[in-house]
């Protein structure tokens, strides 16, 4: 039976169900249990935004608080994964990943390849991404493309509670290292989520809305902004199809191409900085493989090439909104006309 729960609750439930199913699954990170030596009381933090709250009490000994040293505990999680555990490590903000790039890029991502498939690294690194929380330049970035670039890593970025649960379960069951990017502005959004366990395969896009006039590819929070734009556009007779890739690596190129082949127009929405991003990647792929279907130049709606500003008004300007998306759609729909 499905019931309505939040994105935060959906991730928590996925962790709990996988810990229940498989004793090799452990959770670790800063304040995941609620502080070193915490008895797991109800007011424990459960991570910086409370996603792991309550797990310590249910799985004592399997929810570990770590020192504030990302390079050390991400390395430990990767080591534990190669040793047979299935750790889920929380690295608060994607902005902090820099201090453990060697562990992630050069170790975890390479083991299966370099050991000829004899080693696997089933680690999940949970992290928050995205702007909107008034958290300033060092806590607001959308660095998915940095990880998408590296072969050997998988990258999931759910846009809703249903996907969050299914993608987290898949991430834990997957034998490769997974960067699991949770958009911080989505934790309180709700959706119908089955109580039962289920896994959403990686590399399978979700067609969130069907429409014949334009394809909008969007991920994470931008899926909702794109939907808002699509409703607005429907009022003027333009039907947008919205494709949420759900994972940037692997990327469901087929679904994107099929949609563009049907609509002939593409707008990619990505709140990340504009260079070398998901937006440019999708645009390049479509330009190369579906050029003949395009009836207008591809439009990209992204953040500017600046850090995310701290001033509220400027941060709001940084993040693509429905008006900008609708504007880009009008541009491709009216092209040449």
């Amino acid at each position, binding site marked *: 039976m499905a019931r309505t729960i939040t994105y935060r609750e959906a991730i928590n439930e996925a962790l709990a169900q996988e810990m229940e199913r498989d004793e090799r699954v452990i959770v670790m990170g800063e304040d995941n249990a609620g502080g070193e030596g915490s008895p797991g009381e109800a007011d424990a933090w459960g991570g910086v935004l409370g996603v792991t709250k309550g797990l310590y009490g249910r799985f004592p000994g399997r929810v570990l608080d770590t020192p504030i040293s990302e390079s050390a505990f991400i390395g430990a999680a990767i080591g534990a994964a190669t040793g047979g555990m299935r750790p889920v490590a929380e690295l608060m903000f994607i902005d902090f990943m820099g201090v453990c790039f060697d562990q992630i890029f050069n170790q975890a991502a390479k083991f299966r390849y370099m050991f000829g498939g004899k080693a696997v690294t089933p680690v999940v690194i949970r992290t928050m991404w995205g702007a909107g929380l008034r958290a300033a330049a060092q806590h607001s970035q959308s660095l998915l493309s940095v990880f998408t670039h590296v072969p050997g890593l998988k990258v999931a970025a759910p846009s809703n509670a249903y996907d969050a649960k299914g993608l987290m379960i898949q991430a834990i069951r997957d034998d490769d290292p997974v960067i699991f990017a949770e958009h911080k502005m989505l934790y309180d959004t709700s959706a119908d989520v089955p109580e039962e366990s289920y896994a959403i395969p990686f590399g*399978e896009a979700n067609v969130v809305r069907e429409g014949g006039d334009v394809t909008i590819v969007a991920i994470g929070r931008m899926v909702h902004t794109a939907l808002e734009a699509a409703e607005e556009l429907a009022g003027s007779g333009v039907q947008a199809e919205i494709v949420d890739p759900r994972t940037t690596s692997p990327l469901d190129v087929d679904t994107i191409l099929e949609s563009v082949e049907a609509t002939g127009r593409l707008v990619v929405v990505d709140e990340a900085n504009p260079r070398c991003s998901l937006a440019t990647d999708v645009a390049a792929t479509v330009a190369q493989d579906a050029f003949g279907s395009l009836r207008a130049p591809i439009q990209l709606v992204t953040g500017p090439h600046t850090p995310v500003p701290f001033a509220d008004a400027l941060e709001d300007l940084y993040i693509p909104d429905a008006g900008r998306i609708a504007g880009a759609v009008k541009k491709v729909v009216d092209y040449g006309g």
Partner: protein
Amino acid sequence: MAAERSSAERTDDAARIQRVTMPKWGLSMKTGKIVEWFVAEGDTIAKGDDIVDIETDKIAGTLESPAEGPVRRIVAEPGADLPVGAVLAVVAPEDVPDAEVDAVVEEAKAAVASGALEEADEPQPQLVEVGGRTISYLSLGPVDADVPVVLVHGYGGDKNSWLFVQQPLAEQEQRAIALDLPGHGASGKDVGDGSLATLAECVTGVLDALGIDRAHLVGHSLGGAVVAAAARAAPGKVASLTLIAPAGYTPEADAEYLRGFASAGSRRELKPLVGRLFADEALVTRQLVDDLLRYKRLDGVDKALSAVLGTLLDDGDRQAIDTPALLEGVDVPVTVVWGASDRILPVPDGVELHRVEAGHMPHMEAPGEVLDAVRSHL
């Protein structure tokens, strides 16, 4: 000018005004969108007439009139998105004054505007333990009604597939119970050996658990074979059988569909297959495919579908079930309904059946005829 009406006459008028309301097609339906009316104000309609096409986020359907008489007002314009229970049209004899018809229209508009309709309590599915398995079912209509109708879906389906059949039965004071076979819908995913006998025991087990002595069993596709097996195993519990495109009537079947459905993991694989179920593939909405994928991703569903597939097909991709043989010596009335354009299970020769304009899903594409077949036993 109509003469002043007495209060007794006004009470009588009120009783003669019939409201055609937004139907509830399936558990999740909250609103429906008016697509097209087939009748106009002033037309006289009979019960069962197709009156309006309505679209939900899952499927489009045609509402059959529950009322008879002159259509006095069409309240819902095409394009309007209205909650379940909203008044769509008002039907009343000619001598009911306009003022009283209009009062009903005003009241109906106020009910929609107030949002009260959206908050109405709705029946919820229940769980029952049968032989160690958890079975989900939805019971509509009066619990004390005589002999209930029990609806059993097909392979990979669930109780919501009866959306156009269950509610109309319940509206006519008939208890109608739709259940999820094990491995399906919201029931437990353990199907054991997945055999017809195991599935049939679940159906009779639900009857026992609910204290139902006898029921009219209705089964679609795999569910048709399941209810036939239930009738053979427990003939005393079965008042009649209505078999909708039942499995086991011909050796041929679209094995590619069945095996493909069992293995499909993505929308791109599933959508073209699901299209084969219907005569009109436009009925396959994004939501319908999405709901199927959500079901297929649940832990245990793969294994369940694979086990039941072994019940449906032999190694040579021919149907492994022989339903007419199951029915030999079963002394209950049997009605068979088949879609003329069925691409999954071909229409058998030499079997007395009602041929309707539909694909493999007559209960969704031609629900009126399916309802007639079920009601012929009541």
